[in-house]
């Protein structure tokens, strides 16, 4: 994979002088290639390539080149790579990054390069586009809080689970994704008995599992990756059998394809996020088929990282097409085209709000076991037009406060 990538980049570099006759558009792509987000990063690159293939690598006769900026999902590395791409590689704009804290750092970096553009690919922190947004920073997918929206009322009304304890990762995305769930859950009349926050990557959660109250209807789990697998493993060894409600990254393909038995505890788990693996919409089906055929060594079906990278890239290429592939000196025409863009991504209709943040669809899903024993998220419900303020006015939303350990206050939201 890596070799193929390097050789592609190398080949493009050799071809560059010849192509320089026509206008070339140069894209800088940020994706983690080290650390815990390596696999999500690789899947993101797959999504990017899939979208690029749709345009055969050119817009209106202008060739598209791209350069990879490998990160390790930390904010300082993301900014360093972004700066290298802009200053040394001379890219026209940046697609990236993947993780929440990277996104916040790049929003601040975007303000120092007003003549360039950053199109967010998968990072989900709420503050990136809500607090002090940068005018040249665009996000074409819902943020972490939006991803959690709709799940709360679903578990209260459909499942009848009203008392829950919550366990979530102790960092920005954990708070944000939890907030989306909690706002909706508490408004529907749910009660959060106790909140636990897990430090990232601590490995052994057995004591927290023992501390979970047993008089609850379900446990909300908002952890991801290796932490999620460890938690489930230890939960099963401790004999836990309460219902589970999954945060968005708890039930992603990266966890569902982990080797071992722990993930089986997830069967039947309701969750929410930007996609449902088996949604019967023809465009989604076509996208999944395209993914599976192009990348036989990828996941059984695209992860949300692939989908988000795909959507962001598609939006970028559509905006480029609108302006005929000719970028202004200060990219004002590009910014205007991006801002007014409305399109159908494979996972629903997308338009931007005044902060250049997507208003899109959220899917309620449940984990089921397929015929071949693999797990996937089956479609249960879809909530359209979820905006960043979760359907509230700005005053109401600001009154809740920015996501943190104690925000939102559940009792204040109860009807």
């Amino acid at each position, binding site marked *: 994979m890596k070799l193929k990538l390097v050789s592609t980049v190398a080949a493009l570099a050799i071809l560059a002088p010849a192509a320089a006759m026509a206008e070339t558009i140069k894209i800088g792509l940020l994706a983690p290639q080290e*650390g*815990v987000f*390596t*696999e999500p990063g690789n899947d993101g690159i797959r999504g990017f390539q899939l979208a690029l293939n749709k345009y055969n690598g050119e817009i209106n006769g202008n060739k598209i080149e791209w350069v990879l900026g490998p990160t390790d999902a930390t904010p300082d590395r993301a900014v360093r790579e972004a700066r290298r791409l802009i200053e040394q590689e001379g890219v026209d704009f940046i697609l990236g990054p993947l993780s929440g804290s990277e996104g916040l750092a790049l929003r601040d970096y975007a303000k120092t390069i007003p003549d360039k553009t950053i199109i967010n690919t998968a990072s989900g922190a709420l503050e990136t586009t809500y607090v002090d947004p940068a005018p040249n920073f665009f996000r074409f997918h819902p943020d972490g809080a939006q991803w959690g929206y709709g799940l709360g009322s679903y578990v209260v009304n459909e499942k009848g689970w009203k008392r829950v304890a919550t366990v979530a990762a*102790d960092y920005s995305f954990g708070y944000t994704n939890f907030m989306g769930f909690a706002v909706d859950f508490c408004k529907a009349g749910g009660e959060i008995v106790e909140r*636990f*926050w*897990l*430090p990232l*990557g*601590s*490995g*052994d*959660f*057995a*004591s*927290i599992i*023992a*501390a979970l109250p047993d008089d609850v209807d379900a446990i909300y789990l908002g952890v991801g*990756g*290796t932490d999620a*697998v*460890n938690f489930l*493993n*230890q939960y*099963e*060894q*401790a*004999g836990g059998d309460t219902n589970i409600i999954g945060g968005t990254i708890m039930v992603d393909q*990266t*966890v569902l*394809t*982990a*080797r*071992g*038995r*722990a993930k089986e505890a997830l069967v039947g788990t309701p969750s929410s996020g930007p996609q449902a693996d088996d949604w019967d919409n023809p465009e989604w089906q076509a996208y999944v088929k395209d993914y599976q055929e192009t990348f036989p060594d990828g996941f059984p079906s695209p992860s949300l990282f692939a989908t988000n990278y795909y959507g962001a890239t598609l939006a970028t290429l559509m905006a480029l097409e609108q302006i005929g592939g000719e970028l202004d000196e200060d990219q004002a025409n590009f910014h205007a085209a991006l801002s007014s863009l409305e399109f159908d991504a494979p996972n629903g209709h997308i338009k931007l709000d005044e902060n250049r943040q997507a208003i899109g669809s959220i899917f309620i899903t449940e984990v089921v076991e397929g015929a071949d024993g693999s797990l996937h998220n089956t479609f249960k419900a879809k909530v359209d037009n979820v905006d960043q303020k979760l359907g509230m006015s700005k005053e109401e939303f600001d009154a809740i406060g920015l996501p943190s350990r104690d925000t939102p206050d559940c009792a204040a939201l109860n009807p």
Partner: protein
Amino acid sequence: MSRFIQRNPVWSVIIAVAVAALVWLVVAPWPEGLEAAIGRKRIFLNALFNGITLGALYFLVASGFTLIFGLMKNVNLAHGSLYLLGGYIGYEFAEATGSWLGAFVVVFIIVALIGIVLQYVVFRRMEGEDLRQTLVTIGISIVLADLMLWRWGSHSYQILTPDFLSGPVTLPLITAIRGEGELVYLTFPAVRIAILVASIALGVLMWLALNRTRVGMLIRAGVDDREMLAASGVRIQYVFILVFAFGAGLAGIAGIVGGTFQSVSAGEDMRFLLASLVVVIVGGMGSIFGAALGAVLIGLAEQLGSVYAPTYSVVLTFLIMALVLAFRPQGLLGR
């Protein structure tokens, strides 16, 4: 023992009271006032036992590390990679044959062989050059990490618990008394108890081997003064290879243990290298007892911290390390 009591009467009393209090906390049902103050007994007991089991895992990794350092003065920063490699090989073997116990034997042998190769091909050539060894081991750990990432990707792998160890068991410890005098007993994962017992047995065996056998005598002599040992006609290179193989093998089987009650995935190598560094710094470089003490301390700090002070649990282990370095830089049991 009695000499210690004679020399430190005050400390003896303090330790005795602390042990008695701990035993009471573990055995007796808690009065309501105490439960109201610090939470239910079940939570405390679970955190306590989990801390000790986590300590057992850290001990498995750190004992090899500390032995290698004690004898060869070689800080092997590739130790975490041996742990991770052991986990991956153990997963592959257990998956292919279904034998969890068999994986321990196979992994111990394979990783020990890798240890022999490392010692014979690499470290033998740079004996006594601390900086060069350190740099080379960092280099090896990076290369190994990338090779493993290439082979196994960044998925999480979980080694399946064998059926006879899966699920919880009930321990004869009362955690609460329900309404009509019905006793509630502590349930605890069976696999963790097995790992704890095995680690203690291994620790005792290592102590016996070091203190009661001829090879153990050679190793202890080597730790104290390896030039003298070499001068008295012992072929010290063989002792080095033996110790390195044993330490590497231990790291390998620790990988299986870690993969069973946590999971194996890229990045764990650095986590466990850091953990074993902290453990041996706290316990004292080169001391097996020190490694055991440090491992249990760190394990307890992590687990009790995660329940009673979640905000500070990450800092807690480093706080312990800083305190030890400030007041007893050679480690609690170091010399």
